[in-house]
């Protein structure tokens, strides 16, 4: 039986997450309209390169309401292609390229409203596009796999170290505080941890020790490495349920086939 290219698995999960993200953006596209909270007419004033000159004029064409709406559709269709088209099919190069351009444009549009899932998706689609360009069994494709795996490990390590450096996280107060909000919180979980501050502290330490230790996944025996990825997946599932971080689940899970390809 021929083994699936790890980037094909990365692509399916990335496509699923980006399809979901495109559908969600479509559903809340009023936020991005000229009179919405993330109006391009105002956001472009942030920088000279977006407000004036040739780059400003070019961006103004692609970021206006009508084009932005078309870009959401392009993102949805290209994401669907990532799910169904294998990486070595000629269509894949176009679909991943279109997605990369659309996500870069979204990043350039405004510094507000985007999250870590968007950052990871951007890395993933560019790596997928380059991997498709490089072709099967090439050094370029291997570099793409290492890049994705490396960025995933780096993301956990940096997130863990940043938490370790914060008194608020070390004391457990951060967890109770975040869960107490409505934007990223959960009333039941907040009440549970607020009554058990020692458990909240233990949970915080558990999270950042796990995050800091994540890069050891590359040197663990295969069975333990798989166990670590299952634990990480469970972590993102809990975050999706308690914090509403649904697209993080797809964005980070999409990196795991690349990690496994490096480990195995």
């Amino acid at each position, binding site marked *: 039986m021929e083994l699936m290219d790890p980037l094909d698995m990365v692509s399916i999960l990335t496509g699923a997450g980006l399809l979901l993200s495109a559908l*969600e953006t479509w559903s809340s596209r009023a936020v991005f309209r000229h009179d919405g909270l993330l*109006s391009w007419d105002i956001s472009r004033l942030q920088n000279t390169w977006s407000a004036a000159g040739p780059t400003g004029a070019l961006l103004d064409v692609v970021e206006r309401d009508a084009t932005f709406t078309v870009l959401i559709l392009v993102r949805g269709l290209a994401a669907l292609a990532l799910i169904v088209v294998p990486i070595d099919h000629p269509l894949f190069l176009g679909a991943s390229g279109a997605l990369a351009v659309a996500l870069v444009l979204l990043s350039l549009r405004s510094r507000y409203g985007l999250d870590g899932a968007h950052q990871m998706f*951007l890395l993933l689609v560019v790596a997928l596009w*380059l991997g498709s360009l*490089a072709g099967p069994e090439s050094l370029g494709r291997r570099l793409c796999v290492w890049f994705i795996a490396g960025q995933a490990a*780096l993301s956990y390590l940096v997130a863990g170290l940043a938490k370790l450096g914060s008194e608020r996280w070390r004391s457990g107060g951060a967890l109770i505080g975040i869960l107490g909000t409505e934007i990223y919180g959960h009333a039941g979980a907040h009440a549970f941890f607020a009554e058990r501050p020692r458990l909240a502290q233990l949970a915080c330490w558990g999270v950042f020790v796990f995050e800091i230790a994540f890069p050891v996944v590359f040197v663990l025996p295969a069975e333990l490495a798989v166990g670590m990825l299952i634990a990480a997946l469970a972590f993102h599932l809990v975050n999706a349920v308690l914090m*509403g971080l*649904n697209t993080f689940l797809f964005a980070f899970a999409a990196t795991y086939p690349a990690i496994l390809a490096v480990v195995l």
Partner: protein
Amino acid sequence: MFDGPTWIDAFVALVLGPWFLATILNATTRGRALVFRSEVLSRLVPQWNFFAPTPGEHDFQLLYRHQIQDGRIEPWCAWHTTGGPRGRCAWLWNPGKYRRKALFDITVLLLREIERSRDQLDAVKLSIPYLLIANHLAALPRPRDVVAWQFTVVRLERGGGAGEVLFVSDLHAV
């Protein structure tokens, strides 16, 4: 079979290598200052320190009110909030997060702008977060007798207690 590096492999390395190094730089305070010198780079290089070192532990709400022709100022109306119920399926379908996150980022940066400008409201009024809120509010439908509007930013207390007013804008003529 692997036939040795090609120019495409070199191109891949040239794109991904610096991107990876910039991500490492962006994880350090001094490196971040370097990356943030370029606004474009700062938008494309990930910053992986989610919710740390200082997590957001409050929700915010925007409210607005109108001044009408006879000079009276109407009571505050609740407008956008970073809170509100997410729905039972938000673990899978959460379209409201874009508006909430946008409002959260805009509010946090507006407050930072206010702190930086030390209550010089003119400088704050020219900041992007202020203009984004003002532009959005200006587009709201309003009765004909309204002559001016203003908004306020409130930090909500947990459990629905009275919030703390953090900022009140000027009255802006319609």
